[in-house]
């Protein structure tokens, strides 16, 4: 009778399946984990392969680099909550400061590596549709009626915070250093933002794949990459009169590397970013290398000289800017009302 058969099926389901799970024992192999932000996917895919080869050549050991990508703020939150990152390579210093505050690395982490711990820099540019149908030339055009601006959410995305501050810097300079005017300007700009994705990559796909909006406020590297992915004939880059020097920093998470026994590999990983391989791959993937002389000249040639403000000189450093603009009740909370 079927009764017995059904009981057997059920018994088999209940008892056989957990056995499968037992087979998945992790194979023991050296590995380090890099928790990174959103647009670095292509860069670290290439760089990790280079590092794995390099490490094998130097030590004879096989190592695997594990990566995770997402909005910079979200990634920092995960590391604070216990994501076992050996190194973090995030979009801005404030996010690593937050991890330091949780006691996972010393507060002066940014002094441990050259150039504010940023092996490459970038900036914020405008990406518009081919032929620039809305005639966007500078920040002023973004607050006009009928122009839709795409940017991720400054609460979760590092790139979005650079976008926000670049717009702020422009408006402040134009109004003779008046912060109240700058706030009004940025408020107007965000009225033109129809959707806030949580990370830079989400915004790029919103703009490029889903074809929403007229202007994408983007990392320079994201803008270049969209040419490569979607074709040169679809978009144009517009350089605003002022932008911001974005320094995405890298750091070792001391508490985790000591527990994992991976300090040596993690240090070698970050050092290689400053070396020829790292600098070459950074430039190839559209990041501005700190030592352009180490990268390929034709890659470096693509970067245009721009008037760039800096976070330290113009906003008093991330520790100050983060709370003032993006903390609870900061200027972003004051100006942004979802429509």
């Amino acid at each position, binding site marked *: 009778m079927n009764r017995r058969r*059904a009981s057997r099926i059920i018994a088999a389901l209940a008892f056989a399946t*957990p056995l*499968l*799970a037992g087979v998945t024992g992790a194979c023991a192999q050296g590995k380090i984990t890099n928790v990174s932000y959103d647009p670095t996917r292509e860069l670290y895919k290439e760089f990790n392969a280079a590092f794995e080869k390099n490490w094998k050549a130097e030590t004879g050991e096989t190592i695997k680099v594990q990566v995770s*990508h997402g909005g910079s703020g979200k990634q920092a939150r995960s590391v604070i909550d216990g994501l*076992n990152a050996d190194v973090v390579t995030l979009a801005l210093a404030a996010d690593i400061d937050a991890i330091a505050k949780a006691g996972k690395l010393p507060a002066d982490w940014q002094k441990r590596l050259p150039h504010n711990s940023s092996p490459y820099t970038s900036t914020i540019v405008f990406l518009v549709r081919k032929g620039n149908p809305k005639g966007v030339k500078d920040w002023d055009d973004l607050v006009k009626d009928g122009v839709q601006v795409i940017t991720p959410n400054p609460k979760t995305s590092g790139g979005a915070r650079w976008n926000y501050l670049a717009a702020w810097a422009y408006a402040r300079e134009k109004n003779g250093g008046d912060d109240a005017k700058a706030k009004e300007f940025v408020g107007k700009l965000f009225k033109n933002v129809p959707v806030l994705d949580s990370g830079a990559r*989400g915004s790029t*796909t919103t703009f490029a794949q889903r074809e929403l909006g007229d202007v994408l406020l983007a990392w320079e590297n994201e803008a270049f990459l969209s040419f490569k992915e979607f074709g040169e004939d679809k978009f144009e880059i517009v350089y605003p009169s002022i932008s911001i020097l974005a320094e995405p920093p890298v750091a070792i998470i001391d508490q985790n590397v000591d*527990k994992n026994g991976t300090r040596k590999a993690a240090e070698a990983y970050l050092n290689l970013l400053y070396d020829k391989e790292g600098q070459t791959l950074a430039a190839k993937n559209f990041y501005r290398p700190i030592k352009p002389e180490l990268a390929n000249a034709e890659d470096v040639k693509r970067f245009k000289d721009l008037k760039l403000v800096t976070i330290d000189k113009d906003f008093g450093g991330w520790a100050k800017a983060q709370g003032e603009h993006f903390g609870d009740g900061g200027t972003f909370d004051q100006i942004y009302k979802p429509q």
Partner: protein
Amino acid sequence: MPADATLAAAPSLGTSAPIQLPSPIAESRGARIALIALAVAFLGFFLLLPLVAVFVEAFRKGVEAYFESFDDPDTLSAIWLTVVVAAIAVPLNVVFGLAASWAIAKFEFKGKSFLLSLIDLPFSVSPVVSGMCYVLLFGAQGVFGPWLAKHDLQIIFALPGLVLATIFVTFPFVARELIPLMQEQGTSEEEAALSLGAGGFRTFWSVTLPNVRWALLYGVLLCNARAMGEFGAVSVVSGHLRGLTNTIPLQVEILYNDYNFVAAFAVASVLAGLGLVTLAIKSGLEWRYGDQISSAHRH
């Protein structure tokens, strides 16, 4: 069906004075066609079209590109991880579901309605919230965080967290299928078994369980489909480590954001295929064993 047939046949049987039965459908033919067309168009537009779109996108660059998508070790590991998570979560939920529904349907005790509400909780709580709960409990800053760190145990951002979140989200599926059926069946057969000298376990194994077997299989199917397709809760506890803690739905998002649209839709088509298979088996079960699956399984 049979009722309609007799109604339709009745007038033609009449000889001289046909009995005028009021038509159960009062609308004019045009209105009926318009309403049916509207319903079909709606279904086609909102259900069928998106499903077709997944497969069209997946095969956009040809069959070869489709299958190449599955050469990626990260994708393979995502598929394997999903199978492992479901293989742990589903059997556990079968045990929990059986135990809970047996207790609720066959026994009277205080706090029964509270237990029922608890079982329904995962249906009413957003999966993201349930994921967050586990971060708050087991995260480094959470209630058990320091203790776990001291003993070098990793719950969230690892397999245990994924399994916990999946169990939570899929918890009601088996119990919700079984409780109405068991209540409907009553306790008389069990009482008969007991009076004939069978023990508690024997009664359960030979009487209760066979009576609900098809409903149980039905619940397992739904539970499994959800376990493999869950996004929100696992997204919160995953940490998104490539090739390590990404399940199929998370891998689809990653591939999509990597500008790898063909691969994203190819992997999505696996999930969609799983859904279709589930649906087919489910319909088969309903058709064959409808009376034994419980009259109250309308989700």
